[in-house]
Every structure is written in structure tokens, then in C-alpha cells.
């Protein structure tokens, strides 16, 4: 079956199978910033924005994206640049595997709750596993990003 949807503000019509996840669909089309980790809803590395809200691409069926707006870090370059800068300064960026997912979560957090404090950031990032950072530096980077944005 074919589905038509907006990917990073451009219309796409792609073939999919009813059981295919959005994650597999995107990666088949070389949108590889969206990582495949657990493929089971528990690591957060496959996070994308669906109508500006973070969702797990491994958990959403691709058919469900017909008519919707999907954003990945490729489509939010300016804002992601600011997040990367904050990550760099705070040392939150090590192997980088978790970063696209966390960057999109922070983008959504800024829209939802720009005054979030450290505890609220930590709670919002629950579900994003990082094997390298120990999480403290990511919370600091998030505070820096939200602080600079406001």
C-alpha cells in the first residue's frame, strides 16, 4: 500500500506494508539519523516528531503516518544546531547514538514547557537511554539550551 505524508516539510508518497514500523520505513529510505536500538519501545533512540510531538518510530506503524507531519533532526537543522552546541559545551555528546532522539525530545520540551527545571527535564527525558553520558551532562545541556532559548 502507498501512504502520503509530510517528512521534514516535504510531501512523500512511499510504499509500505501494513505491519511495517515508521522506523523501518524511514531507514529503508536512508533517513538514518533515526536509530534502531531496542526496536521494542524502551530506548528512545528512534524518537521522531509526529505533528510536533515526540513518538517512538519503532512503535508507530507506518500506515498511521498517512496525512501526518513527521520531523527528524534533518528537518530542524537550526534548532538542532543550538542543541548540539549546548551538548558540546556540557560534554553531553559522546558516541552520539542517543543524541538525535534526545535532541528531538528537547525540541518538543521547549515548545511544551520552556521553563522546565532540572527535575522536569530529567522526567521528560525518561525513556531515552544513553550508554555513555551518565545523564547529568545532558540535563545541564538541556538547561543551557532552554535558558538560551528563553
Amino acid at each position, binding site marked *: *500500500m502507498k501512504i502520503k505524508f509530510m517528512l521534514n516539510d516535504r510531501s512523500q508518497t512511499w510504499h509500505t*506494508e*501494513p*505491519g511495517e514500523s515508521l522506523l523501518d520505513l524511514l531507514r529503508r529510505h536512508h533517513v538514518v539519523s533515526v536509530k534502531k536500538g531496542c526496536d521494542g519501545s524502551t530506548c528512545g533512540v528512534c*524518537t521522531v516528531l509526529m505533528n510536533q510531538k515526540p513518538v517512538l518510530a519503532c512503535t508507530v506503524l507506518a500506515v498511521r503516518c498517512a496525512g501526518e507531519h513527521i520531523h527528524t533532526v534533518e528537518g530542524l537543522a537550526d534548532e538542532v544546531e543550538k542543541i548540539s552546541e549546548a551538548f558540546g559545551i556540557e560534554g553531553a555528546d559522546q558516541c552520539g547514538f542517543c543524541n538525535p532522539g534526545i535532541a528531538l525530545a528537547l525540541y*518538543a520540551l521547549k515548545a511544551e514547557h520552556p521553563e522546565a527545571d532540572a527535575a522536569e527535564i530529567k522526567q521528560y527525558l525518561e525513556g531515552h537511554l544513553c550508554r555513555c553520558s551518565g545523564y547529568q551532562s545532558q540535563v545541564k545541556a538541556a538547561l543551557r539550551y532552554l535558558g538560551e532559548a528563553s
Partner: protein
Amino acid sequence: MIHIEQYHKVDSLEEAYRLLQKYETAVLLGGGAWIRTGSKPLEHVIDLKGLGLDTIIETKDSLSIGAMVSLRAMETHAGIRQLGGGFLSEALSQILGVAFRNTATVGGSIMGKFSFSDLLTPLLMLDVTLQFYDAGPMRLTTFLAQRGRLKDILQAITIEKKACRAMFKKVANTALDFSIVNVAVAIVEGRYRIAVGARPGTAILAESVMAWLDTVESPTEATWKEAGEKVVETIKLGTNQRAHESYRQQLVKTYVARGLKEVSGS
């Protein structure tokens, strides 16, 4: 990738219900987060998206939450946040991460009757009615007590607003784990409620202990402790790979007593 032989995009609830009855193996698609975890091929999947089941309607006396409302939309709704001091939002916020809760739905979470559910246990603190397409209204407690699969479409749940103080406790190894056990305690219009979930069986009310507590005239710290002990005597707790029965008993005793202390303000 899960294997779906036929995906049905329908235009109405009537059509969804007709297909559900027509095909013995038909499955309704809520958020799809749980369905995805299965390994068996699915013959007929009926999508409930786009049928108007994704709104929350608040009136003076009640909240009606559509079955396709996401767990996150429920958690962040101002009316839900006000119920019983926000315990329901607090419980929902402990189910995986925000991105997951933006997909998983209220309907899928109730119809799954998941034994580990962090939604069913706190919902038992409230007067909740499920609205089914064919069966009409049904109390949550009646639904939970039923055995077997109900081949119907859950359209919405209605929560009656009542004066309530409540707490919910999830015990899990990490924030992303299933509950080892969970406990909800409330005082609703002056009467006690206690529920235990992930026993590892599905959430259940400790009705005899609730009735006993209602008869105690001046409860003290000792009453809360006794209530915790009575709960583990009357509610079946068991052993599975997450915890031993005796560990669950200790947890339930402790959190029931603490919860009663907290909600009673003593």
C-alpha cells in the same frame, strides 16, 4: 516487522464493529504499541484512528476520555491533574517515556487488562464507567472481573468527579520497568479505597479491608498497619520472575500503611 494480512481503514464505528464480528481473529488497533510486541501474524487489523474517539470532555461532574486518547494527553489534561491531588497523572507519568505515552492509548491500556498495569490500579480509586459500542455502559470493576475476551469496541471511559484524596505507588527496579507491585489508596467522599496491582495478577480492590476501615471510628497509626496486614491476608499475591510472593507481601503492607497515613493526613 509484524505481519498483518489485512489492514482495515474504516470510516465509522459501525463498520469497525461489523468487521470485528465478521472475522473471528480480528484485532482492533489502538496505539498498536502492545500489538506490535506479538510474534503471531495478524489476519485482520481494524484501525480505530479517525473515528472521533480521541477527545476528552470535561463537565462539572465528570470527565469522559475517548478510547483513542493517548496516555500522555490523559496525563497532562488539566481536569485529570486535579483529580485526587493529581495521583492519576502521577501514575501515568511512570509508564515508560513521553514519546511512548504519546502513542499508547487509554483504550488499549484498559482492554489489554494488563496484570502489570499502572493505569488500572489508580483508576479503581475512582468511579469509572466504560462505554462500549454494543454492550453500552459497564463499571470498570465488572469489566475487570469478567473472564475471556469481550468482542466489543471501547469508545470512552467516564470518571465521576468526587471529593477524593489519593496516592499511587509503583515499585519497579528502574523507571522503565514493569511494576513489581503497585498500590493505590484513597479516601473518596469519606470512604476508604485500596487497590493492589501487578500482584502479579490484575489490579483488584481490597473490598473487605475497605469496609472494615469504614467502621473504625478514630483510626491511628496502628490502624494503618493493621489494614496493611489485612490486605495481604485477603488479596492473593504470588511469585513470578519479577518478585517472590513474600517480597510483594512486605511491599504491599508497607505501602498500604503509608498510603493510608498520607491520604488521611494523620
